[in-house]
């Protein structure tokens, strides 16, 4: 194993799917570059059409950002749609399509015997309300709570692992706040 310098250009190529298999293999076989995260953030920041500071990428199109004007930490889509407090599961603020029948399921699972069984399972597709991009898929039984795929402990990560605490360190307690939104919904029932 060797340690290699991974440039921003290489990261861009990797993200775009144009890095050769040989180069990917080289990356896999090498010691990891400790500055990858910061270079990655720079590349991501250059590519989004807004200038809120990206703190972390959660998914292909979902980022945790620090809003330029208010300083709030929110989750946000590439298109600019804002999902709110990053500690609330962003999927709760999406649009949703649910496939329940074999006919609906066989549009995305095929051949037909490969389809999940209706009534036992349903396919949930989560879309960004701003751009319609499919951000997440769940295949679960009816009645299953929506999963919060990943809630990072940002303050610990920046302070203890990167040794570079965020300017508002300590302001956002590390906790899942999804229930606060659901409780609001329940008042409208």
């Amino acid at each position, binding site marked *: *194993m060797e340690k290699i310098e991974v440039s921003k250009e290489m990261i861009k190529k*990797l993200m*775009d799917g144009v890095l050769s298999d040989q180069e*990917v293999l080289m990356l896999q076989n090498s010691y990891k570059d*400790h500055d*990858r995260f910061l*270079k*990655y*953030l720079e590349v991501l920041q250059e590519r989004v059409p807004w200038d809120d500071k990206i703190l*972390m990428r*959660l*998914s*292909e199109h979902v980022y945790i950002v620090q809003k330029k004007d208010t300083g709030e930490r929110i989750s946000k889509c590439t298109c600019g749609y804002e999902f709110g407090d990053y500690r609330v599961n962003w*999927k*709760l*603020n*999406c*649009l*949703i399509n649910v496939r329940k029948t074999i006919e609906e399921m066989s*549009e*995305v*699972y*095929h*051949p037909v*015997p*490969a*389809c*999940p*069984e209706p*009534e*036992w*399972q349903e396919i949930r597709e*989560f879309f960004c*309300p701003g751009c*319609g*991009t499919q*951000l997440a*898929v*769940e*295949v*679960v*039984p*009816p*009645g*299953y709570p929506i*999963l*919060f*795929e*990943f809630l*990072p*402990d940002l303050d610990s*990560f920046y302070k*203890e*692992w990167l040794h570079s605490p965020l300017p508002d360190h300590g302001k956002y307690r590390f906790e*899942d706040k999804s*229930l606060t939104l659901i*409780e609001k*919904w329940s008042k*409208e*029932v």
Partner: protein
Amino acid sequence: MFKDLDDVLKNAKSLKDLLAARDELTQKTGTYYGIQELKLKEEDPLKFEQFYAELHSVVLRAREHSRLITASPGGREMGESLWSLCTPDGDTLANSLGFSTHMVAYRKAIRFMIENGYEENPGINEGDIFSTDDGNTAGAPHPGDTYTYLPIFFDGEMVGWAAAVNHIMEAGAPVAGSWPGFAVDTTMDGLVFPPMKVGENYTPARWWEELWKARTRAPVFNILDDKMRLTGCMYIEQGVKEIIKKYGLDYYKRAIREVIEETRRAIVENIKTLCVPGVYEGTSFRVVKYKGLSQVWPHADKDFMLHTRMTVRISPEPKILGDLTGTSKWDYCAFNGYPGGADIAFYLPVTGNFLNNTKMTSGLFYDIRSYYPEGCTYNPDTPYAAFSNIWAQSMSMGALHWNALTRAFYARGFLEECISCEGDWAGIQGAGTLANGQQYGFTNFEQVGGVAQGAYPFRDGIPVAWAMWTQLCNIGNQEEWEYLIPPFFYLGRRLVKDFCGHGKYRGGLGLSSVHWIVQPGRDLYISRGGAGMAQTPFVAIGQCGGYPAPNSWYVALRNSNLNEKIKEGLPYPRSADEILEYVNEGKIEAKDLQIFKADPPQLRMEDGDVFSDASGAAGGWGDPLERDPYMVINDLNNEWISEKIAYTCYGVVAKKSSIDGKVRYELDVESTEKTREERKKARLSCQSVKDWWMKERKRVINKDFIEPVRYTYKSSFSTKDGEKFRQYYVGFWQLDKDFEL
């Protein structure tokens, strides 16, 4: 008790002393045996590395030698075997190639032997052979995985264990094969035995051989494998003695502990380098359809899903905890397991992702741990739970763990390490009687040896090129399986069109083989031992908008005119989907065509019948509408996807033409752009999650689910920690605090 490692090495008198000292010093200090400095490594790093290289070399050679000296075809061909060197108290120092996380079981079995006084009764002496395949006492995942332990002595002092495991061909359960898919309790698991002394002076006992003959259906193969494991262990024993002679006993005893502490430190560094602290949630479901199959066992006569819920918590120290709270309660089915065997699945992503720059030792276990609530599928609160096929759903647990880590790697920018991980696999198993009266049992490991790799965030997954559970992906030779299983012939083997999780990058396609039955003799019964079944995908959440992979499905074509068509020289189907096409198009007529999306029962097969599997598909990554449309056209032209999926899933419109009788597709750019725009618009008119929640909540309050779904939730509410999941469920749907399903 002991103040440090030096004190232990000087004063420990027994294996019990060593084990207690290891536990106490490690827990108290957070480092292995309380080791603060890697003295031997620091004094002479080259000597230290050379020492380890020699240990590693011994176990590597043990595998390659022993499987060529005596082995069943399964033992010789497949990757599911492992030879290892362990410390006297059960930590692993070095592994051969193979299914490396089996080393989890070594710790469990050796601990059991030590804590239960095996030093006194039956005694642990030079040349003694121990064996086990038990989950509860010895950490075996299932009875098909059989372990051999040989203690290593030097000048009268016990200095370690040589250990080996392989997946045998037949486990002796009521359902023939090595992963019985139907078992009500452990008495139906087959030949299960706790750690036992099965030989002395390096010689297996006569009764031991007779036991294999009496209690399993493939005794010749199983005895060959038993000798294979022992051969490798003896090779390790001799090699270790030579190494101790060269380096000295004192060096050996300290160095083996430093090696493990070195790994532990490397794991900690790798977590910090690759991950992000936080909470990662995942879930998976596995169908159990026993309704009607088990009318003689009323307590097992039900349909439900096994729910595996995993919350991975990466803490800043750093430590990783895989918390299985919310997982189903154990049940009267074949798919339970015990913590040791479950951990073999849990640690798969650790060996797959964190050991690339260090030594593969037990050092990986100390800062990454699992938690299985008492009473759950992976930790039954009874020793009588069946565990004949925990692999049916524990692979999904490994995949959930892997996908959680992938989310962390993705956040850090290490895209080259990210895959949409799946754990599906399949095996065909059974028993028969040849025309001459010879009885036999078998397992075909083809679809365990290799499955498709999931999509990366930058490229498609590759079919039949990977397996989460082994570095040695190898589906074996068709010819080998054909001679091993007399009436089974391969009529075809090919990738199944559309059979993957789709996405911007799609998973590798699943594989299908058509097993043609030719002159089975007096009788032949087959079933399926495998992981998921298509009724539920395995991993319930896709990556970044991609779809999780579909699971396995099967086709049994019996009492058909296939043999006549073959005699006439007409084309025949090469995969499960082609069988269905042939029947639909009238090219084959069958009186009995069955499609299985849940485990089939044992099926009686006659001459000319066919059994076909479709398995090992992998998951996608990203929104399918973002897939390069030319990649979709390429898939069409390679017959990897259908026109239907190109349109319905990818929004791609293709122009079809025929050149020299061969169908070719070209992209209709304008229609594709229009179709994709329309799809996006349609998405934007979908309901909000809030509106969906309002409607679904009423359904939950009304308990408007089919019984298997209701049972699944109730089961998850009823483990020791099930109340936590119930409260979470009640919170999400804002239900009465006493709500029950």
